[in-house]
């Protein structure tokens, strides 16, 4: 019996990255700006999507992929706004993977402007999985505390923008918006911050403005 050592040097997330690149390429070609929303459970992802749906209304076509461990509830909330939505239930898995998004691909209309993906509520695991998005957006709600960026650095270092949600609650909480923003910028100096409230409807216009600008850039790059 011989002992043998073989050198492999293979990325364990390699197959996910490969599928994600294919997805991104196809979405880029179709001119559909894709945004992956990450946050802990209850930070307000679905509420923000409802607000975005109202803001975009008839001017832009959007669709949503909802990720949850169980239930079709979030997809139903989005459909109630007249927006096409697909629910991925992972049956326990704590994150979405690119192949799950890939499976839905044939059903996604090609005349969309925006495709939003609501990831599983979890600030850790989803950060490691590229889904083929153009923009990764991490949400931090004010009740969670302003010290989260350094506690969950990967979610913040890999995101393009930070949305501080539930700003309506800031007056009654020991939450410092600047501190949260500064912490996020320490772990990711390029991150763009938005502050929103789904209850008051504030900050949504700034966010849609950023998405529209990014969509135009994507299409210019295609032309």
């Amino acid at each position: 019996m011989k002992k043998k050592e073989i050198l492999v040097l293979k990325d364990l997330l390699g197959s996910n990255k490969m599928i994600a690149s294919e997805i991104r390429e196809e979405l880029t070609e179709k001119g559909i700006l894709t945004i992956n929303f990450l946050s802990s459970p209850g930070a307000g992802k679905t509420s923000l999507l409802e607000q975005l749906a109202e803001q975009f209304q008839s001017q832009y076509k959007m669709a949503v992929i909802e990720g949850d461990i169980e239930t079709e509830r979030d997809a139903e909330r989005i459909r109630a706004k007249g927006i096409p939505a697909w629910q991925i239930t992972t049956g326990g898995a704590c994150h979405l993977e690119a192949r799950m998004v890939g499976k839905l691909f044939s059903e996604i209309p090609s005349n969309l402007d925006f495709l939003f993906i609501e990831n599983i509520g979890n600030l850790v695991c989803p950060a490691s999985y590229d889904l083929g998005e153009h923009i990764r957006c991490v949400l931090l709600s004010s009740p969670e505390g302003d010290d989260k960026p350094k506690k969950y650095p990967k979610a913040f270092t890999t995101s393009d923008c930070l949305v501080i949600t539930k700003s309506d609650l800031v007056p009654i909480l020991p939450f410092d918006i600047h501190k949260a923003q500064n912490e996020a910028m320490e772990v990711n100096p390029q991150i763009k911050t938005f502050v929103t409230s789904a209850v008051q409807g504030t900050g949504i216009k700034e966010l849609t403005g950023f998405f529209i600008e990014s969509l135009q850039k994507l299409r210019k790059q295609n032309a």
Partner: protein
Amino acid sequence: MHELSIITSLFEILEEKAKEKKARRITCVKLQVGALSGAVPELLKTAFDFYKKDTLASQAELDIDEIPLKVKCKKCQHETFKDDFIFVCSNCGSSELKILAGTELLLEKIEMEIE
């Protein structure tokens, strides 16, 4: 806990390599896990020990090389290790840093017994 799904992909590669080399047993598996890889070494070990039962690797050891986050300043070229994940150059204060190491999640090598 996405470590189990990482270990599932690891075993896909292990099975493929073992078949290719006609291995009888896998005795050791070595990974490189970066501080910013998103995976926790302890959890990878737990998942590995759970998964390896009834496979060619049932007796195998998982050896993890933990790679610290290493950055290089784009302005002053200063290279340093960061254990706080704060992306500011400790030499000149610039925030334009390039990551040199620390995001990897690699299967480095496999040790196996062959007929």
